[in-house]
């Protein structure tokens, strides 16, 4: 990835106020969009899709925490997504536990797993990390196919109650509100993390691992923290997708899901916090209106990824900046 220059937001700031103008603006804008969609849209189809888009955006955020955060390609992030979907499904169907407990159990389990996996694999970088990460998701998928508790290739389905507290996620409008609010909270949390010491450390690691280490940053520990932070977010996304999918099969861990998220992240740009959200919205909404065959979709999107990587590795964000720079230059040169 191109080395983006240090942006003005990462200038030296000693204080890290919890409430900033930026996060306040985010809340207001987010709440406005949520209310506009929630009150203005009546179509069940669009509301469900919007809810799914929010959970998918959550997964994209988790992928970007690794891709944009520490500069690795987490091909196996779909494993955490799958765990987040499987754990509530298993607990609901086999232990009769409520959905909420399952969500938290999945998040906790994925975080613990991320500690173990990260401790083993984050010493590797570049293609090596990506291969191991992909490999682990492959192992997870084979495991889901072969175990009895996961329902084998058929998967798990027939969930009786999908609600968080009094909110029934099987109702499209409630589903949308719930996922959108969770997404907004996650964005706020990540915005806070970005400006915190940890976020700065990550940025310096992404730009130059060795320089960061020479500055006294414990590179391995910060990378591990990033993975452990990203895993429960991916698991939460997986759990929130259950009301949309209504079934959990081994395919939920397919690496295609990571590829989708990578595309969403790349469209929006890795440098911005809300880039993946913008990318996810474009990515999930546009194909619904083009009525594409699944394989045509994969083909088009893969080619799109290649195109973005060749032309604008920084995504829409970079394109906008380039256009802006050109506009400023051309208007400035005129007498």
């Amino acid at each position: 990835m191109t080395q983006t220059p240090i942006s003005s937001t990462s200038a030296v700031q000693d204080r890290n106020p919890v409430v900033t103008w930026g996060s306040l603006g985010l809340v207001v804008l987010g709440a406005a969009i949520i209310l506009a969609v929630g009150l203005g849209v009546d179509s069940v189809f669009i509301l469900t899709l919007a809810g799914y888009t929010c959970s998918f955006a959550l997964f994209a955020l988790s992928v970007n925490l690794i891709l944009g955060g520490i500069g690795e390609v987490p091909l196996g992030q779909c494993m955490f997504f799958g765990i987040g979907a499987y754990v509530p499904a298993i607990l609901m169907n086999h232990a009769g536990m409520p959905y909420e407990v399952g969500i938290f159990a999945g998040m906790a389990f994925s975080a613990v797993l991320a500690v173990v996996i990260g401790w083993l694999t984050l010493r590797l970088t570049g293609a090596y990390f990506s291969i191991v990460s992909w490999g682990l998701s492959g192992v997870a998928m084979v495991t889901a196919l072969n175990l009895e508790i996961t329902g084998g290739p058929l998967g798990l389905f027939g969930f009786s109650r999908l609600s968080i507290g009094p909110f029934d996620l099987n109702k499209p409008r409630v589903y949308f509100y719930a996922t959108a609010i969770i997404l907004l909270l996650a964005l706020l949390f990540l915005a806070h993390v970005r400006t915190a010491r940890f976020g700065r450390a990550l940025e310096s690691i992404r730009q130059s691992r060795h320089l960061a280490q020479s500055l006294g940053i414990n590179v391995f520990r910060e990378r591990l923290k990033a993975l452990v932070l990203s895993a429960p977010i991916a698991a939460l996304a997986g759990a929130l997708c259950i009301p949309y999918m209504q079934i959990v099969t081994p395919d939920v861990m397919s690496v295609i899901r990571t590829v989708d998220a990578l595309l969403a992240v790349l469209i929006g740009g890795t440098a911005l916090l809300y880039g993946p959200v913008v990318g996810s919205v474009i990515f999930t909404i546009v194909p619904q209106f083009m009525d594409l065959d699944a394989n045509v979709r994969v083909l088009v999107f893969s080619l799109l990824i290649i195109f973005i990587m060749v032309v604008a590795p920084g995504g829409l964000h970079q394109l906008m900046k380039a256009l802006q720079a050109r506009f400023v230059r051309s208007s400035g040169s005129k007498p």
Partner: protein
Amino acid sequence: MELFVQTIINGLILGAGYALVAVGLTVIFGTLHIVNFAHGAFFALGAYAVLVLGYADIPYLLAVPLAVIAVAIIGVALEWTVVRRALYDRGEHGSIIITFALSQAIVAAIILIVGPDPLPVSSPFGQTAISVFGFFLSAQRLFIALTSIVVLAGFAWWLRHSVKGQQILAVSQNPRGALYSGINVPLIRSLSFLLGISAAGLAGALIAPLISAFPTMGNANVIVAFTVVILGGLGSIGGAMLGALVIGLANALFETFVSVSWTPALGWILVILVLLFWPQGLMGRAQINRH
């Protein structure tokens, strides 16, 4: 005991087949410094080329070299349009995403053009088995092993004794030094890419009669190739050949004595273990990919 020897033989023959895919992967890594995640897609393209040529009534033994040429042509076109522009000197990060996307695109294209179902590929060796000292060898597997050994031996000889081969070795050792000594580095990189994916195409064409042609057939094989290449040491050609035999044996033994349905996970687990505990591999140079 007999089963054990039979399994060992099967494993070695399997390994000879893996070596083809793995050597292609390692040559590309050595000179381009990218891990070609699209390798499995070229493998599948080789198999489908043989399938299509078979429909045109071209005999299998002639179809195999033609399929390799077809894969090479597609490879050149992609090298020219995508790989060259995006990968060289762009760092690993972009190349991982691009080659991965390329592989998804090729697989999706195959599904759209030919269809998702496995299609049988006929071969003159069919299902015949040859008995040697009381052990059975499938004729097709023997053919794969022999072709692979001949091609790899020829390739190794060519690398050592031809000017272009020497240049490939030079670029993989030190691209800057090679450039300063007047070697056309971009040309050599294109040539290595071409050779690497042609080997993948050849492997696909050879294995197709055994496992039929299906769009994602490359995945399993490229995963094994990753294991092989990492075990041997990325970029080391000798290591790839040795690694292929080791992995072939491991797979055959596991399949026979432990479990068939868990075998796909074995490749992944081996990759992970090797990367974790032995990242420079059997014959690789020490890597700076750790910190």
